[in-house]
């Protein structure tokens, strides 16, 4: 396979992690109106957990699944802390998530130290492409597809959408709005955890890896006004591909700038029309 094709597949693989991170942000924002700045911590926590579980002798697959579930539980806890008190505004909850993200650094350094870690993914390659990238793409497609079905085809998904659309009306029909918000946080946590678990074998992870993930995931999500899953996926993949091309043909040191420029461009373009966070 040609060099360009390799970059494209690699870029889509990396972009999947951004799309998962962005989707976690979108699920949480849609239901609770909270921008969850602790989103990257779910990924880091899950990835570091996998290193421990594998070291303890758990088999691949099982270790990763357990870590993703744990990230879901952590998402639930973040949701409880940030929004559990009745009457909390979305703005103050946002500040709380920021604080929790910083707190996560302390916990992670305490548990795993400050050096980068990694673990093996799927070994081998086909046509010059590491098979692990194909795994990332396949798992992401299945999980985001299942998430879309949950929202579009189940009453639970409809109730989540209803909560986002009109919390007052949701309460009238008996939907527990607080519980829906916590469920969204748990789902967001699991999506974030999955991003971290999938990407680590090709990228390494350390306590501060959340920044790069959140900047890219947020850029992808903001493309869809933090509410549109399809645009978030497209944004994530595009960003992954552009970053990989820039890294391949120019210099890897520009990769994080690409995400920042992308985010700024989207924000400026949107701000020209209307306030991003109010519009949704």
């Amino acid at each position, binding site marked *: 396979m040609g060099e360009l094709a390799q970059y494209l597949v690699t870029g889509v693989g990396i972009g999947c992690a951004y799309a998962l991170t962005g989707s976690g942000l979108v699920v949480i924002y849609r239901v609770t109106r909270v921008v969850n700045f602790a989103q990257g911590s779910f990924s880091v926590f899950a990835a570091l957990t996998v290193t421990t579980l594998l070291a303890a002798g758990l088999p691949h697959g099982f270790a990763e699944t357990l870590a993703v579930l744990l990230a879901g539980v952590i998402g639930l806890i973040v949701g409880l802390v940030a929004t559990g008190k009745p009457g909390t505004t979305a703005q103050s909850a946002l500040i709380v998530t920021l604080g929790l993200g910083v707190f996560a650094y302390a916990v992670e350094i305490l548990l795993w130290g400050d050096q980068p870690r990694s673990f093996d993914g799927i070994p081998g390659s086909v046509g010059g492409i590491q098979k692990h990238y194909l795994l990332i793409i396949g798992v992401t497609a299945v999980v985001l597809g299942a998430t879309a079905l949950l929202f579009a085809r189940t*009453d639970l998904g*409809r*109730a989540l*959408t*209803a909560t986002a*659309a*009109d919390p*007052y*009306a*949701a*309460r*009238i*029909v*008996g*939907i527990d709005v607080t519980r829906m918000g916590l469920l969204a946080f748990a789902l967001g946590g699991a999506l974030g955890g999955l991003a971290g678990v999938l990407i680590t074998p090709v990228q390494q992870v350390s306590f501060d890896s959340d920044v790069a993930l959140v900047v890219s995931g947020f850029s992808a999500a903001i493309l869809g006004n933090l509410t549109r899953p399809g645009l978030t996926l497209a944004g994530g993949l595009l960003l992954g591909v552009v970053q990989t091309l820039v890294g391949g043909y120019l210099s890897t040191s520009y990769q994080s700038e690409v995400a920042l420029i992308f985010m700024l461009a989207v924000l400026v373009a949107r701000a020209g029309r209307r306030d991003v966070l109010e519009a949704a």
Partner: protein
Amino acid sequence: MIRVEDLVVRYGAATALDGVSLTVAAGELVALIGPNGAGKSTLVNALAGLLRPAAGKIRVDGRLALVPEGRHLFTPLTVDDNLRLGAWRAKNRDTGHIYELLPELEPLSRRPAGRLSGGQQQMVALGRALMARPDVLVIDEMSLGLAPLVVRHLADNLRERHRDGLAVLLIEQNARLALELCTRAYVLEAGRIVAEGSAADLAGSPQVAAAYLGLEA
């Protein structure tokens, strides 16, 4: 069905309801009229359990469903999904019986609720409330902003549901409509019940006629 006794509800320091008592018996059609800001919607939200009373008692026997002021549909969801969520607390969320009661909703079932006209939306709000298979229905400002023909249609529908045994508390600024439709009525002003009685008596009272029916006292 509904028994409210000496209900007091406050927003911070402001008292919105100040010792309100009211009853709706099983199968009864009762109107609550009063000017803007009287506290009618506050009473509705307290009945639905969305506001905590500062004092007094609320008792509801059986299932209560609410058609809120402003309809409050889930605008991105389809009509059918809106109906389904009306039965969120119930396990049976089949919408078939609603399309029998409100046949005009059937052709709209796959449309996003936000795309409908005001009258159609009010119909969906009614259908969504009926999905809960309620014993008593509370409707806040049923006619607000709707064309007379649409209001007539809604009123006919309400009469039919009443004939099926449903109790209704109808909140209206259109007092003429409310008094015509209901058998008993309360008048709420500034958080207090200032008059109550049979709809016919109230319609005949000079004060009510002057204030709410636009007739000379």
